[in-house]
């Protein structure tokens, strides 16, 4: 099972089923020693992995206000500065699209003249409602939860993805 650490010179003591107490104790110590080393390595490894996760991240809140509904023109696509979200106003109501291409995460650009979102990284294209129609993007742009606060401001929640027919009537 394990290599004896000390040689037992008394051949008669180990020749039959008899095992010396010293032999057993050394075996226990041997495996306990390796167990302690393994335990320390696990604790150190776990600590290193834990260290990579910050307790606090200094990022903008996922929920933010985006002005009053009257600020948005009918049929317009508006990029909220610093938030990577478009707020689109249509006759059916408001909806918020996450400005992150579903292919590999670049920020598409809205072309007002062509009424289309184009991603500069790999050429994916999306209609105004976020549906992909060209390029490598596998899914439509994520639609985010949008609601009205008590003071009548639009509130977007980037942490909450909604269905592709979700609109906010005002």
């Amino acid at each position, binding site marked *: 099972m394990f290599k004896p650490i000390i040689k037992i010179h008394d051949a008669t003591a180990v020749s039959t089923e008899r095992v010396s107490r010293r032999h057993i104790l050394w075996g226990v110590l041997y495996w306990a020693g390796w167990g302690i080393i393994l335990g320390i390595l696990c604790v150190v490894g776990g600590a290193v992995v834990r260290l990579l996760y910050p307790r606090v991240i*200094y990022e903008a809140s996922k929920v933010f206000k985006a002005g009053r509904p009257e600020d948005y023109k009918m049929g317009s696509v508006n990029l909220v500065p610093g938030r990577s979200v478009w707020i689109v106003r249509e006759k059916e109501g408001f909806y918020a699209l996450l400005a992150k291409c579903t292919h590999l995460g670049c920020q598409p650009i809205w072309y007002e003249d062509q009424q289309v979102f184009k991603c500069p990284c790999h050429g994916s294209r999306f209609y105004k409602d976020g549906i992909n129609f060209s390029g490598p993007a596998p899914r439509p742009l994520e639609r985010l939860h949008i609601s009205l606060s008590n003071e009548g401001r639009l509130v977007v929640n980037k942490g909450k993805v909604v269905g592709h027919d979700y609109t906010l009537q005002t």
Partner: protein
Amino acid sequence: MNIIVQMWRSIFRTGVADSPVHRVFRVVVNFLLHLHPARVSKDGIKLRYTFCLGGLSLFFFIVTAVTGGFLMIYYYPDVDKAYASMKDIDEIVPFGTFMRNLHRWAAHLMVIFVPLHMLRVFLTAAYKPPREFNWVIGVNLLLLTFLLSFTGYLLPWDQLSYWAVTVGTTMAENTPILGAQGPFSVLGPEEDMHFILLGGTTIGQPTLVRFYFAHCVALPGALAGLMALHFWRIRKAGGISRPL
């Protein structure tokens, strides 16, 4: 005169006497001369057998490490200063452009020469026993070379860096198991590989510092350690490019 003899002895350990035996002994105990093998087979010095591809890869690593050290003196891994300090290196630091271009070209050549070395090893069947584990180490060296290139890409902090790293880390987000968006994902968006790489959910200051650490400390350290093992195993397996 005695002091000079003592200095010579303390450095070379063999005294100043000159004879063929002394010369051989000097080679055997000298670290720099010991780096090269005492015996080299005829095939080992044939240029067309290895094309020096492994040695050139090492050379380009040394060039990137040395020039990278000089660049570190003037570069700040701070989102407000990184781009400006890169422009400073290019425009006002004495020999800055030269150092940056050396670093860039040596890095590109390393990425080209490491796979070429791998191709040569494959074509001459030099991955066969007893060298098969050294092939595995070599694959890890190739991965580290790619990771060094990738992490270095973010540091100029311009549009190209930003979106290239967006693309690369989104791939990490779509990795099976380890990525939040990938198949068989078990980790959330604030627990996955993408989060560890970025130090957050979007590319920002924590990302730049993490990539800087990886590019300047962690990856070159790992690469140097594995290279030492790689070269030691070449010697133990019987030297370079020799049929065994």
